[in-house]
């Protein structure tokens, strides 16, 4: 049987998710036994427009990106959004809360008009997406799990519960108990609460969980004497596109 042909592409993002793929180290060699990587500009000169699975990193931020994205969709049987920027719009959407003209002027001054842009968005705002690998950056194990599922023709098993579930299991001291604000209660799990485990908070990089329980999140805020303003600042880090759609 012919091995599935796999391609990697990137739009506006930091390429940290493709780096996570490179960081699989020896596991890449095992992966190469199962698939043929035919396009991966970051690591190879060769290029092909014939591929079965396209992994797309980064947000769509310009009208001219849409043509390239639509062509990828046309060429691929399966399109996978790789990482937060592609899957939920991610950190790029911070600027969607601002006047984009002013954003351009802040960075490029009186030559702003040379630099085309529109509200940053996830790739499923432009094309149909078949699978999502969340996270900023993606979790290597979850990436492998998604690849395995796709190769077996199964739906990847992505958690639909919040980060708090994993965080409790890891016996972390709750960030709210420590006087910090955390968006774990409304953020999709699957990261094993990695940031809280490292002594900080959940920043929400995997996006809002399906049907977030906002009322209970509000109760948590009230219980710990926090305000909606505290919440809004953190919500604006990664949830920009999802919030605008709700």
């Amino acid at each position: 049987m012919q091995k599935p042909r796999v391609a990697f592409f990137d739009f506006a993002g930091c390429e940290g998710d493709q780096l996570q793929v490179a960081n699989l180290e020896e596991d890449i060699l095992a992966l190469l036994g199962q698939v043929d990587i035919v396009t991966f500009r970051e690591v190879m000169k060769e290029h092909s427009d014939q591929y079965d699975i396209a992994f797309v990193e980064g947000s769509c931020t310009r009208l001219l990106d849409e043509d390239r994205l639509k062509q990828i969709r046309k060429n691929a049987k399966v399109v996978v959004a790789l990482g937060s920027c592609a899957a939920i719009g991610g950190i790029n959407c911070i600027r969607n809360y601002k006047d984009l003209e002013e954003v351009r002027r802040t960075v490029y001054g009186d030559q702003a008009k040379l630099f085309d842009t529109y509200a940053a968005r996830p790739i499923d705002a432009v094309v149909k997406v078949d699978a999502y690998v969340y996270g900023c950056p993606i979790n290597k194990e979850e990436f492998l799990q998604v690849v395995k599922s796709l190769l077996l023709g199964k739906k990847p098993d992505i958690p639909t519960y919040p980060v708090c579930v994993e965080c409790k299991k890891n016996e972390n001291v709750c960030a709210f108990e420590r006087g910090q604000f955390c968006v774990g209660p409304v953020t999709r799990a699957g990261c094993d609460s990695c940031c809280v485990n490292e002594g900080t908070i959940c920043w929400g990089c995997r996006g809002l969980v399906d049907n977030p329980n906002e009322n209970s999140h509000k109760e948590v805020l009230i219980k710990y004497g926090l305000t909606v303003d505290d919440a809004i600042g953190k919500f604006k880090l990664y949830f920009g596109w999802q919030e605008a759609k709700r």
Partner: protein
Amino acid sequence: MNDMNIEIHHVTRVEGHGNIYVNVKKGVVEKCEWQVPEAPRFFEAMVLGRQWNELHHVTSRICGICSIGHTLASLKATEAAMGITISDQDLKLRKLALHAENMQSHILHLGFLVLPDLLGAGSVIPLASSNPQEVKTVLRLHRLANEMSNLLCGRTTHPQRLIPGGFSKIPSIKELVALKKKMQAAIPDLQAVAKLIKSAAGKLPNFVRETEFIALSSPDEYALYDGQIASTDTGKAPVNEYLTFTNEYIVPRSTAKWTKHNRDSYMVGALARFNLNYDKFSPWTKQVADMFGLKPTCYNPFMNSIAQLVETVHSVEDSIRLINELENAGLKPQPDYFKPEIKVKAGRGVGAVEVPRGILFHDYTYNAKGVCTKANCVIPTNQNHANIDLDMKALVPTLLDKSQKEIELACEMLVRAYDPCISCSTHYTTVHFV
């Protein structure tokens, strides 16, 4: 050679998107240009209105590959603005984090992106079958650097433990010593990679163009985390005066801003650091440079890759030294979920750090509530764009007796030698022979 059009859209094996355009008519180069069409990302606008304790988290996302460097430059800017100092122990741990990233990035560049050119392959993928031992050696070193990032930062990309004033969590001395032993055991791997690159180094073009080099420099050590700005043309200046060095300007064909200082361009990165700070290397590290005949001041940009190899050796050696010092001093433990006490105040601060691709500046202004009101980030690859462009304009006329394919390869190799991080600089690479 009569007429030739080269158009390389989105140069491969580099981070981000860039294009090369070369047009030759009747044996004369009419156009030779480096372009950066990457989608702009507007980070300096994104951080406005955000809190002081979030900026390092946001600006880390400028670049996946040098996220530790961006986080550190960001923290240093915030700490400078608010007069926050860190302990000597945290300083050493941050230096280790920076070594981890430099090693990871340099090995990725040398082993995955440069080596295929030297061994005549399109990528590392066919090398996995043709040179399995060599590829596995590179992967082992890469894995070790990532293990080190994990230990210091809590993960490999977009660090978690690095926070204003110190660390939210630190490794134990046992873990650090175990890391040190792994690094000592990795020295034969490092020597094997040096020999492998040496065996193919004849493929690196012997091209020379005099330019200015800029890097941090310190009287105490090979400067990476701290130092003054140093130029091979004009000498040293404090970090706060960085704007007089970077002089950013906008080029319509590039979404990245370009910079110039004493000449039309300057170069930053491993070769710039090597040229400015060679005397701080140990004899052992200098031996690796000697293998390649690399001495300061070297004006061949293709030797940047070799300077990266030399720096990798330095990072291993210096990391072992730092861990020994931590071990001798006794590592002071800290509470779980540590959050240093910080007195928020208004002010402006500049943070400069040497990251894999060169000197990086973050410059923030905060109001009394700790809200960011102004931000500027000058990224290494931005500072190299003009130098890449001028190198290409000098290189192509020397190659006109070669085939189009050979010229394309030389141009791509030139761009790769800089190890550009175009996402950082906006962000993207393409060669167009028009």
